[in-house]
């Protein structure tokens, strides 16, 4: 019992971080209606600034750095770290979140994910990818309670963060600005009419959240060190805490954070016990936040508050695709020529682009057509890839049956994830899917029982005696493999176009526009969602199999949460509502041909995540139809000019939701 108490106290370190991030998430949600997936990443920046100052006296800025000559004291370094957090909060508000304040939830989720990718990429570039040591602001030591030695630093951290949360609570409860923030969250129009500026209130909230998170991470990183990954993804358990508090109560955030931190710490002790099953040794602590999220959303799903905001921007338009022979043949010829005329890393880059195009296509189905936000497409792809390793290496299932089988496995997983989507939507669905993706990555893909030390080798494909393996001897990218990928991609695109232009596609669009209206016109909304998730996950699964075949070996690294989010970034960048968008995404995608050129010709491979993150922020704000949509609009404009007003393209399908009136400006 004594040991468990000691571990519960040690878990308070984690709990204190959850308090900081959870309270910040709640505050920003109340002020803007946005769930900020970048909360952990934002909190990390100021902590990094503090740590670097203490390491060598360098004040690291996003661009350039200032050498202070000698290491500043802990207090001065911490103060500079907090000033950085204030500035970051202001920049995030005015440049990133304010422009999408009235945009659809999809754009808001995408923009916060983009900010997360951008900050993480910037941290890697500025501070390096490796762990760095962080000085402790609080003294180390222990207190004795009834003869039990308890670590004092974790207790102090929790008290500090709880006190800061209490200050935020008092701000919301007793100050005019805080009350106005709460009022605006209930009814933004009324708050505007009463003379408040929701925009300024949101800026204040964003700054407070950034500072609170930075304090938490600065304190917490003294226990763990800092690296670009750990604190960025702590937003997931913090989101679980936020949901337990029903996005409303700061008091419950504090309590839930402490309980979750303590519980995870005790689990960490239990997994080392000899009686604990081997299969549950890896990543079990990540299951807990996911389980919390699932339970809360199932139990409270419909009762979670949403914000009465003023939406003025519609979801990106959809153009119903048509199967046209000439463009299809031209595309196929261009594809074959591009593969045949290149070799080595360039051919491999083009092949990867085709595979990423399929991953982006899975987003087009689910998000562009069905309007559902999933941050777990990478996990679906990974599930298929890992299954492919098992069915080819252990069971000897032949190609192409193996790939189809694994696509169906991904499809089943997708339909399982669709179950919460029956009750919830929008940002809450994004929370479920990112929690699921993280749990699958840590608990399944990284699981020793599934991934032996030799890795997950994938047997090369053969069909009718033709060797379709990706490499042979010194030939690293065989043409036959690349052509096989092209054929599979063409088949899937053809199937998608058939589907999108038929009844299913129309049902998807109806559900996207308005679920109630769709149901009243006889569409089975649940079944439609189930089909949408299934098809999308199937496409992602096939892409996962092709990733596996292209490498001959798979690990969790291919399907991390971040890898999935980067594909979302390029899918949105290319255009989330069209096949053309998916193709652009493929060209721009991770390890695709643009990446290969950036790396090989311009030596800029390290900047790829930063460029894709910034590109995504810009797209989400300025050009929600993506590169493909913008190009289509330009082409249509030129054609109209040429034909003197004649329509060259079918009119885009607009959402059924009426466009609200412009908000009154204060």
């Amino acid at each position, binding site marked *: 019992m004594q040991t468990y108490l000691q571990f519960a106290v040690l878990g308070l370190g984690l709990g204190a971080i959850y308090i900081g991030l959870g309270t910040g998430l709640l505050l920003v949600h109340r002020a803007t209606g946005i769930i900020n997936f970048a909360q952990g990443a934002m909190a990390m920046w100021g902590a990094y600034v503090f740590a670097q100052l203490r390491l060598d006296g360098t004040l690291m800025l996003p661009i350039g750095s200032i050498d202070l000559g000698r290491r500043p004291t802990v207090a001065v370094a911490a103060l500079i770290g907090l000033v950085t957090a204030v500035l970051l909060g202001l920049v995030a508000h005015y440049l990133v979140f304010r422009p999408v304040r009235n945009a659809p939830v999809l754009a808001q989720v995408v923009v916060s994910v983009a900010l997360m990718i951008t900050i993480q990429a910037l941290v890697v570039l500025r501070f390096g990818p*490796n762990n760095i040591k962080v000085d402790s602001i609080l003294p180390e030591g222990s207190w004795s309670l009834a003869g039990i030695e308890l670590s004092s630093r974790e207790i102090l951290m929790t008290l500090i963060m709880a006190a800061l949360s209490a200050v935020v609570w008092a701000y919301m409860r007793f100050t005019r600005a805080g009350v106005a923030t709460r009022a605006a969250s209930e009814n933004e129009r009324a708050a505007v009419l009463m003379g408040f500026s929701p925009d300024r209130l949101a800026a204040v909230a964003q700054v407070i959240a950034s500072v609170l998170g930075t304090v938490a991470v600065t304190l917490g990183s003294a226990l763990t060190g800092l*690296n670009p990954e750990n604190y960025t993804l702590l937003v997931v358990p913090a989101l679980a805490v936020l949901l337990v508090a029903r996005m409303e109560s700061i008091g419950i955030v504090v309590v839930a954070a402490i309980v979750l931190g303590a519980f995870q710490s005790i689990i960490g002790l239990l997994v*080392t016990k000899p009686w604990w099953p081997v299969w549950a040794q890896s990543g079990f602590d990540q299951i807990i936040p996911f389980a919390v999220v699932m339970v809360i959303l199932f139990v409270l799903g419909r009762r979670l508050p949403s914000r009465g905001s003023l939406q003025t921007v519609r979801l990106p338009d959809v153009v119903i695709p048509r199967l046209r022979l000439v463009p299809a043949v031209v595309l196929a010829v261009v594809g074959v020529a591009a593969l045949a005329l290149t070799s080595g890393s360039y051919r491999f880059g083009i092949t990867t682009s085709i595979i990423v195009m399929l991953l982006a296509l899975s987003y087009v189905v689910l998000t562009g057509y069905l309007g559902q936000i999933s941050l777990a497409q990478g996990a679906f792809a990974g599930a298929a890839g890992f299954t492919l390793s098992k069915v080819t290496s252990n069971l000897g299932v032949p190609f192409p049956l193996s790939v189809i089988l694994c696509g169906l496995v991904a499809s089943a997983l997708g339909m399982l994830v669709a179950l919460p989507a029956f009750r919830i939507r929008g940002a809450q669905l994004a929370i479920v899917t990112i929690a699921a993706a993280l749990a699958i990555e840590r608990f399944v893909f990284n699981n020793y029982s599934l991934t032996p030390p030799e890795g997950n080798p994938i047997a090369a494909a053969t069909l009718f005696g033709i060797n379709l393996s990706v490499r042979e001897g010194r030939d690293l990218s065989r043409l036959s493999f690349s052509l096989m990928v092209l054929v599979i991609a063409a088949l899937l695109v053809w199937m998608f176009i058939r589907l999108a232009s038929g009844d299913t596609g129309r049902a998807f669009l109806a559900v996207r526009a308005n679920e109630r209206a769709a149901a009243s016109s006889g569409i089975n909304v649940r079944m439609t969602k189930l089909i949408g998730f299934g098809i999308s996950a199937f496409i992602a699964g096939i892409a996962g199999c092709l990733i596996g075949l292209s490498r001959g*070996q798979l690990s969790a690294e*291919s399907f991390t949460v971040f890898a999935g989010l980067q594909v979302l970034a390029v899918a949105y960048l290319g255009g989330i509502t069209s096949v053309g968008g998916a193709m652009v995404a493929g060209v721009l995608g991770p390890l695709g041909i643009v990446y290969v050129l950036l790396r090989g010709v311009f030596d800029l491979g390290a900047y790829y995540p930063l460029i894709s993150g910034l590109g995504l*922020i810009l797209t989400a704000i300025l050009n929600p139809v993506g590169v493909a949509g913008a190009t289509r609009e330009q082409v249509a404009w030129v054609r109209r000019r040429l034909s003197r007003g004649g329509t060259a393209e079918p009119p885009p399908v607009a959402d059924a939701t009426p466009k609200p009136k412009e908000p009154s400006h204060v």
Partner: protein
Amino acid sequence: MKRSLAAVACAAAVALTAAGCGSEPGSADSSGGLSGDPVLIGVQAPMDGAAAYPQSGYGAQAAEKYVNEKLGGINGRPLKIQLCAGDNSPETAINCANEFVSSNVAAVFDAYDATMGAAVPILTSAKIPIIGQLGGQGIADALPAGQAFYLSGPLETSALGSMTILNQLGKKTAALAVTETPSSHGYVDRLIQPIAKELGITVSPMYTPTSNMNFNVMAATELSGNPDVAGLIALPEDGCTGLIKALRTQGFTGTVFAGSCSQFVTDLGGQAAGAVVQPRLWVPASKKNAPAEVQTQLDDFAAAMDAIDRGDEQSARSLYSFGGMVDLAKIISGIRGEINPDTVTTAMTQVKDYQTFAGPTVTCDGKQWPGRPSSCSHKGIFFEVQQDGSLKPVDPNGFIDLDPSKVPAAA
């Protein structure tokens, strides 16, 4: 507004990208003024990510400069390394291997990268030999004769050595941390545990995700079982230091086992005393107690690290890469004629009674370790940290012969 926002954002993107394009220490010209076609060696080093050992790459960079400037290159030709930074993912190892094949490297040096196994099919298919100081995964070092050469022995050396020394010290229970990766699970389950069982030692492993190491929790977890020995099997250098510091802070006065970590000795001073370490070579901190010729070599190593502005990164890992690369350069200097994968392989198989850099005498005849023809040695060395921070070999002779028959996998 939107246009100005876009302009600001684009300018920021360009500036951010430009800002990062700086020069790194060690990126200066390392050719030593030698002319002629460089001899290109690929180096796969785990330099990036949470479980990074960047020192493994620095050691290779220092060796490149040292070989060219102090040893006159390879038969007068400059040694050139193609350093590929691994991040503990097989995917990156595969990309690196593809680049090595595309660049026509003469050999690939495995700078103790735990994901080297993923590169094996590509490199063996291209008939490029893999050479390293020690194997990190039990895959490349398990290859048939003539495909890989590990100068100080295979992965089994570490497992057998660590349990042998704990047994010699009379320890019966050990709680040891290790990075949470599939290969480390395999290492513990397939090697450490069977050997420990044979020697009557109970080992409680603690798998730690290196992206999130809470040292207080780790130390408390290890000490919750009251072990004779606490410490680690393998962690990055900062992880070693953090864990050992937390163990001492929480009052542990027993034996600390620190794997092949070395930087904690400098970082922790007196708190490090009594810890047992198991590197593969005479490491810098052991210089005081090393033979005279090794002392000279360690001085050369220190000067070479200084020469690339990495003087503060002298560790077991950087020495492994440095020593291994210097040995490789000396061995292939004996090749008369073209230096390519075939001739390097032949030269390696002919290595006999060769005195390695700060290491044991080795013979790469494929018979040094049963079932592991890649191994060139079956010797081990262990040190105890002294109060003054120096390392003293547990056995006065330094290297001792290990008994591979105790390893079930190799039997």
